[in-house]
């Protein structure tokens, strides 16, 4: 099948179809966040599954471009009234790239294997109790308690279907049912896919995909300028978008992401334990400036922990608007002066830029902030998430619906609220969208009021595409980047 020829970045000639699309074309796409290896069951970070899910691996369901759950390997499903049983009807005639047939055994195998996952939030599907094979193409997934989010998580990496024979070398090879076959991954340099000609659904629009990895936004921007790549996803060269927009050949596509850039305030710190102090800090920060520094103004200012694409999103931007005087008053009323804080900053451009603006902002209300840059992920994770040794820290939580982490008191930001936990449980037990959304909205309000962190902004998902490239996904939904619709025209 498919991968006959290595892809090398430039559009090769091929037969043009009547629509002007070249189905023999190869496309090379610049990417950020380098996968350490191919095993997203044990390797953290979005980089791995982003590339593989929906392209090489598939799950029972998927998220469409609007974030709605759609069938994939499951043709259809039913949810029991108590919300504890999901019955899936499976696609027939689906095979893995190595020829293994996809059936109910695979589903049972894959979902039960979630116990062995050590990365990418397997606990989100902790409610799964058992997987029953009804027949070859029907399975029932039983939950121990209702979980309204279960389908959503099944649409993500946790729902990926694996062939039992290939789970031993997940780190170095990928065998799925998707529209692309995995060809090669040159560590941190490039990953290559070839079209799966035996795909059960609509075949992919290009013959081959090359994902080229960059650690540096401007290096990638230079590459697309000079024809090194045809497109870039997740571009962070914000300052260059303007000049790209002025150019004919390159299209700048600004979409949304699931990311929440949040500055957490450690409640173990004496002063930060006080509501007034946290609120003061929140109001002292000019989020517009922060976003201007971090993303050149692209993205959405946040007032709360949810992002606009969440079904329960409420705009809280007005709640703690930038007001240094009010912040100063708050501090005074809390009787806090000479506040000095250390701010652990992961060594990522957005974080360093944001932190410097914040430091400057806070100095205006007399809060002395010391920046401490830490390598991400190794040091930052250890110091902040494991040891919880910080006063302030900042990170972009990219996983979808990351607000759920406020349910866990042991999570690094140490938010511990009985009320919030009850609301989470209520939302999980919801049986319809409205019920779910209203619980979550209530929860959001509570969080905003408690303000355990300063939600800064929701970064954009910016793609750059050269002329003739179309079908690139616009939004980042925190699942796989579906490249099957990408086409290249003459």
């Amino acid at each position, binding site marked *: 099948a498919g991968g006959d020829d290595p892809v090398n970045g430039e559009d090769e000639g091929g037969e043009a179809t009547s629509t002007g699309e070249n189905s023999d074309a190869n496309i090379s796409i610049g990417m950020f966040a380098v996968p350490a290896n191919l095993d997203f069951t044990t390797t953290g970070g979005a980089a791995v599954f982003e590339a593989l899910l929906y392209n090489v691996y598939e799950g029972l369901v998927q998220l469409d471009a609007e974030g709605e759950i759609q069938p994939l390997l499951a043709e259809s499903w039913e949810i029991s009234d108590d919300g504890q049983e999901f019955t899936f009807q499976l696609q027939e005639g689906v095979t893995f790239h190595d020829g293994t047939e996809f059936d109910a055994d695979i589903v049972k195998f894959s979902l039960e294997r979630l116990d062995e996952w050590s990365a990418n939030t397997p606990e989100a599907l902790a409610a799964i109790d058992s997987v029953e094979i009804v027949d070859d193409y029907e399975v029932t997934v039983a939950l121990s308690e209702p979980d309204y989010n279960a389908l959503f998580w099944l649409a993500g990496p946790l729902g990926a279907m694996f062939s039992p024979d290939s789970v031993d070398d997940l780190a170095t090879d990928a065998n799925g049912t998707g529209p692309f076959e995995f060809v090669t991954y040159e560590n941190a340099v490039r990953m290559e896919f070839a079209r799966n000609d035996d795909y059960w659904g609509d075949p992919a629009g290009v013959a081959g995909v090359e994902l080229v990895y960059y650690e540096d*936004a401007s290096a990638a921007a230079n590459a697309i300028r000079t024809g090194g790549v045809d497109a870039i996803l997740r571009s962070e*060269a914000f300052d260059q978008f303007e*000049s790209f927009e002025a150019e004919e050949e390159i299209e700048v596509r600004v979409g949304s992401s699931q990311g929440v850039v949040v500055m957490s305030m450690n409640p173990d710190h004496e002063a930060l334990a006080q509501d007034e102090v946290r609120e003061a800090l929140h109001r002292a920060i000019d989020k517009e*400036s922060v976003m201007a*520094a971090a993303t050149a103004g692209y993205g959405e200012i946040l007032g709360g922990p949810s992002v606009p694409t969440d079904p329960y999103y409420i705009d809280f931007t007005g709640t703690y608007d930038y007001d240094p005087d009010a912040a100063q008053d708050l501090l005074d009323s809390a009787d806090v002066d000479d506040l000095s804080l250390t701010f652990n900053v992961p060594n990522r451009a957005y974080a360093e*830029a944001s932190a410097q603006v914040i*430091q*400057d902002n806070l100095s205006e209300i007399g809060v002395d902030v010391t*920046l401490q840059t830490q390598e991400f992920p190794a040091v930052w994770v250890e110091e902040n998430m494991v040891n919880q040794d910080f006063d302030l820290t900042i990170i972009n939580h990219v996983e979808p619906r990351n607000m759920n982490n406020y349910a866990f008191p042991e999570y690094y930001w140490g938010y511990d609220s009985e009320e919030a936990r009850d609301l989470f449980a209520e939302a999980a037990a919801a049986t319809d969208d409205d019920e779910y959304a209203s619980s979550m909205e209530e929860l959001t309000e509570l969080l905003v009021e408690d303000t355990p962190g300063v939600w800064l902004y929701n970064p954009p998902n910016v793609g750059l595409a050269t002329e003739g490239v179309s079908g690139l996904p616009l939004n980042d939904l925190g699942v796989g980047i579906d490249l099957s619709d990408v086409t290249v025209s003459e």
Partner: protein
Amino acid sequence: MSNDRAASVTTSRPPLTNGQHVRRRGGTPLVIAGGTLVSLVLVMAIVSLMWTPQDPTATDAVNRLASPSATHWLGTDGLGRDIASMVLAGSRVPLMVGLGTVAVGFTIGVPIGIVAAMTDRGAGMWLMRGNDILQAFPALLLAIVLAAVFGPSTLTAVTALGLGLAPGVARVVRSGTLQVLSREYSLAARAAGRGPLYLAVRHVLPNIRGILIVQASVGFAIAILAEAALSFLGLGTPPPAASWGRMLQDGQSVLQIAPLTILWPGMAVAVAVLGFNLLGDGLRDRFDPRMDVTR
């Protein structure tokens, strides 16, 4: 193990006594040019301690990447900070790194070199072996690894760069010391009943002073370049301390649209390095016109 041989081949020539090579006090224009540039940087650093046009850490995201104006003489950077102020204040870190590097390098290298020369056969040989091993770890490599071990900071950079400088210093000091020790005045001092410490302090150090000054000057230049490279890799001076290397790193992403953000710190680095190099060259000509070129 390698360089001494070349040194001995090139320097073991008998002294020129027939007056054809009259030693001139060379290098004055170089010293003046280098000295001027170095002073310029020093003055920048000192002035920045007391005054900068703007607060170099004050961000102003609305005015980011502004062109030069009356308030922002050289424009602003990606966070809206005043580039002129940052260039001024940014001279402190490289100078400190340079000073620290030279201090560390000398504190380690000079004693090693002198002791190795004085105990040439026994302990000295092993000292130089150790030195060779240290020399196989290039300074920047050390810096990267140390930054990984202890986290990136000026201190780790200084330590690593100093450790990287030390073996070279030790070598030069050793060969200089050997030369001093081979002079009859050293023998005379021993015959006068003077101990090794006296010899080191009264004869060796004053006579290798020239070489040391040259090494210091060159060490400064190297340290400034290395600091810039480390900061560029994100392993040097962490924000918000202004440093030219960081400015270059920050400016890299806006090179196309605001080349000035990179031009100024780039020029500052070049001027400082040029200054120290010229000074070093000039001083080398002055102190030691026939110094072994391999170091």
